[in-house]
Every structure is written in C-alpha cells, then in structure tokens.
C-alpha cells in the first residue's frame, strides 16, 4: 500500500516535557488510522507535526511525498482540536468561506448535507448546538475534497446519531481513497473507523495494529463477572470490614479468577471463559448455593487495550492505577481483612 503519511522518529519537546519521543508511523492510501491515548500523550502534537503547524525538534515527516510545510494545501483537510471559527456566520457561509480558499471547492450545500446539517444552513454558527457546531467544523475539512484528512477529536460533543453520521462519512471517504488520520478518546469510534489503531502514551507510540490485533495481544481474555451480595452487609461507616468471598470457594472452577469486595458486594471475575461455558459456572454457583445478583459476560475490546496499556503509563506518572483491568484487579483484590489490625 502506498504510504501517504509518514512519520520518522518525530521528536518534539516543550521545556522538560517530551511531547513526541521518536514517533514513527506510516499510513497508506485510503487507510483510516485512529490515534488514541491519554490527555497529554502527544496526539495533538503529532497531528501538528504532520500538518506543518509545529516544527519538530528531530525526525521527519512526509505527507503526499512532501514535507508538511510544502505539501499541496488543496489536497489536505485538517480539523484542529478546539477549533472555533467565526461565530456570526451561518453554517453555509462558513463552509462557503473555507471553500473560497481552495482551487476547486465543493458546493457548500453538498457538504452541509454530508455532515447532516442541510436544514441548519441559515443558522449562525453561535446559535447551533455544540454537536452541530462540531459537525460544521468537520464540514470545513471537506470543502476541498481532500486526499488526506486529519481530524483531531472530530466527534467531541456530538450526540450518538450525529456521531454515526460522521462515522459513515469518514468510512465513505476512506472507501473512495481518502487517507484519514483521526485522534479520539472514543474507543468505539477508534474500533469502528480505524483500519489500524495507534496508542500514544508519553510521546511514544506504544502499540500499533488493527483493532483485532491489539485486542488479541493486549486486552486479555473474555470474562464473566459475577456479583455476589456480601452476607450481613453493614454499610455504616464505623462498621467492621466486610467478610469477603473466600477465593478458595472457587478453587474447583477450571478458570482463573479475581475477587474484589466492597461493603455490599463481592465481584468475582472469571477469565478465559467462552459463552458456551457460562452454564458450568451457573451450575457451580447453584450447587454451592451461592446467591448472585448479576451475571455478565464480556468480550475484550479496545477500551480494555487502552486501559491495560495506558494505565501502565498513568501508574508510572501518578503512582495510582486508573482502572486498567489487570492492574485494578491486582490492586483491589481483597486479601485477609484482618491483616494489619491489632488483635483484641
């Protein structure tokens, strides 16, 4: 596949902070590359380095065979993060304004229809809802029918229906050969749109692959979550710690398990279990007369990948786990409730 966007060991620092610490990637024609990562990971800096709006300290970038500074602007469509266009223009006037900057612009009304705002063309930008405003902003990137589309968090603030309109739009553009780089915090968006997904953390691209590859490699196995009410739960602040479910109770199950407990429930997570094996766990619980209030099976997804990988950098930065599947289980697993307490 012809590489349309190429980053080679891109580096960019702000003071002591390495926003980009040697990022390399290659995006092919018609490919959608979704960039995910925590706030401050360097996503926007990477977007800026690839669009010529920041000058990297090291490394190089190529877009359509040229440096980002010299690439033919008529072939590029960019939506910056937190972009706010002139707000006393109507949606149609805004698109006409940006269309007027290009050699062969599209009809603004056609672009309005593409972003699902055909009925809002005469409304001033400032009077549109937040989601509609963002869709107009997405529209400004389409007025020149670009070959390369760079969208920095394009669906932030857009309602689910509008988000799907944008998703379908991006998919149709990619099908027609447009190369798309987008950043997002929406894992469903990355999973649906991304032919490949890159996870950026602390300025480094720590994982790249198709969503399926990333899930297989990093997200762990499918899991069954069983919520078991804690016997004689006492929610008073000065109450004794709850008596946890004894992990040994589940020793006969053929699956790895994690147990965590709070005042009212114990959560047992049974790992590496397929849907067809759920019945065996139900039978196991019934045979031991263990009451449960909820039984939920889940396939791992990109969010698990994100939490697994990004959480490691969060822990390294803050010393606290942010909710990663593995780390959380390890951190919150209840051991002996009397450990550390003085004997009466």
């Amino acid at each position: 596949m012809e590489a349309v966007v190429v980053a080679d060991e891109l580096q960019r620092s702000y003071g002591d902070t390495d926003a980009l610490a040697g990022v390399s990637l290659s995006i092919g024609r018609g490919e959608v590359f979704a960039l995910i990562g925590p706030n401050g990971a360097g996503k926007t800096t990477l977007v800026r380095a690839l669009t010529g709006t920041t000058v990297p300290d090291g490394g190089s970038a190529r877009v359509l065979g040229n440096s980002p500074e010299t690439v033919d602007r008529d072939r590029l469509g960019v939506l910056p993060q937190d972009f706010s266009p002139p707000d006393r223009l109507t949606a149609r006037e805004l698109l006409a304004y940006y269309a007027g900057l290009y050699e062969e612009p599209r009809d603004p009304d056609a672009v309005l229809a593409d972003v699902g705002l055909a009925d809002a063309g005469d409304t001033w930008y400032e009077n549109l809802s937040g989601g509609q405003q963002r869709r107009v902003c997405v529209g400004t990137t389409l007025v020149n029918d670009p070959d390369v589309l760079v969208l920095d968090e394009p669906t932030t603030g857009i309602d689910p229906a509008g988000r799907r309109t944008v998703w379908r739009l991006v998919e149709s553009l990619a099908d027609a050969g447009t190369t798309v780089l987008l950043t997002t915090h929406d894992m469903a968006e990355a999973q649906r749109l991304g032919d490949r997904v890159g996870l950026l953390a602390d300025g480094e691209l720590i994982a790249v692959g198709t969503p399926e590859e990333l899930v297989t490699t990093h997200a762990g196995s499918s899991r069954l979550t069983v919520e078991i009410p804690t016997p004689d739960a006492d929610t008073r602040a000065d109450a004794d710690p709850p008596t946890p479910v004894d992990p040994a109770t589940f020793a006969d199950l053929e699956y790895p398990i994690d147990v965590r407990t709070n005042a009212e429930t114990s959560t047992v997570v049974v790992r590496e279990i397929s849907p067809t094996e759920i019945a065996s766990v139900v039978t196991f619980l019934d045979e031991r007369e263990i009451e449960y209030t909820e039984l939920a099976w889940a396939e791992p997804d990109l969010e698990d990948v994100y939490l697994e990988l990004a959480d490691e950098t969060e822990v390294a930065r803050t010393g606290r786990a942010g909710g990663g599947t593995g780390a959380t289980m390890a951190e919150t697993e209840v051991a002996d409730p009397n450990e550390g307490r003085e004997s009466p």
Partner: protein
Amino acid sequence: MSRLRRIRAEANADWRSFVRRRTAVFFTFFFPVILIVIFGALVRTDPGSGGGGGLFAEAPGYYVPGYLAVVVLFTPLSRMGSEVARHREGNRFEKLATTPLTRGEWLLAQTVVNAVIIGLASLLILALVVVLTGAEIVFSPLLIPYVLVGVVCFCGVGAMLGSYTDSQDGAIAASNAIGLPLLFLSETFVTTEQLPGWFEPLMNLSPLTYFARGVRAATFPEAGVGDLAGLEPALGNLLVLTVLAVGFFALGAWSIPRTD
C-alpha cells in the same frame, strides 16, 4: 485568480462578521464622533485668543489630521489586535495554515475590510469637522491614499500587537497603551512648539507624524508644512508613510503565527 478569490473569501467573511456585531459597528463610528463633539464643539478651537496658548489654539482646519488619525490609528490597532488574538484563541490560524491562504493574504483581506470601515468613518469625520467646527479645508484627492496607506501601516502594527500579546484583553490594552501616546505626540492635536525641543526627533519615529503632516499639507495649506527631502510635503510625507506601511505590513504578516 485564485489569490484574489482567497482574499475575497476572507474579506467577505470578516466583513459579515463585523457588520453583525452591532455594538462594534456603533462604537467604531461613535468614538470619533464623540471626540469631534467634545474637542470641536464643546472645548472648541480658539486661535489667537489670549496669545494663542492652550491645547486648541490653532485654526479648526489644523486638527483635521488629528480627527482622522483617531480612526486611522485606533481602529486598525484595536480591531487587528483583537482579531489576531481571537484567531489564536480559536485555533483559526492553525486551521488557516493548512489551507492555501497565506499570512500576507489574510492580513491584506483584513486590511481591505478595515479600509472600507475607516473610509466610511473618515467621510463622517470630515463632514462633522466641517459642520461642527467650521473648518475650512481643501478636499484633496490625496486624502484617499493617505487613509489607505495609513490603514495598511497600522493594520500591520495591530497584527504584531495581536501576535505578541496573549489574549484579546492584552491586545486591546496594548493597542490603547501604544495608540494614545502616538495620537497626541505625532503632530496631530499637539503642535511641535508645545513639546520640548528634544522630543522632535522622537516624533519623527512615529508613522502617524507623516500621516498628520501630509494630510495637513493636503487639506490645510495655511499650516505651512515644510518640504520633506526636497519633495512637496503632501507627496513627501506620503512617500515616507508608504515605505513605513510596507515595512509594518510585512512585519505584521510575518508575525502572524503559523505554528505553535
């Protein structure tokens, strides 16, 4: 030409944005009007009385460049300063940097809009000055290039202010801090004789001085503005102002941020 189309698109968007801000439109024209009413009608000029002293001791026609300078100087400084700051805050320059529009084209489009606004305000000012103060002036065609070149010059300065201040508030404060001294120390309302001798070379550093001297030479010949470098004062000062305008415009365009 695509360049012209880009400039037209930018200017069109800026014009619409401006005229839809009614308070901005109102005060853009109200500011010079209130100044003429205060200085021209209330304080009034009083040439010759009491030995010709005081702030407004010259004939009313002498102050025409000063009244015009109010809009030629302040409107571009404050509008461009805040416009650049607004563009920075909304990441609009980041967006524009990825389009074919260049920084020079953007500034030129903004300058065209400012020229139209200031041209209209200047007509209003000239009419009011004549009506309210009884100024007897010559309506020289050179007024048009003076206003245009002045707008170009101060749009460049305003763009620099917006680029080097970190907010709209900062840009407006900076434009006031720079504009007020320039307005009163550039041979507009205060004559050279009213200032210390050592200050005159500093007046020659202000672009507004050449605007004031040139406009005065063109509209109020009785003022006796001296030749400049062997040229008639109206043309010589226009030449100097043009050179300064080209320089400040280039610096203003260069200072507009394209990268973070």
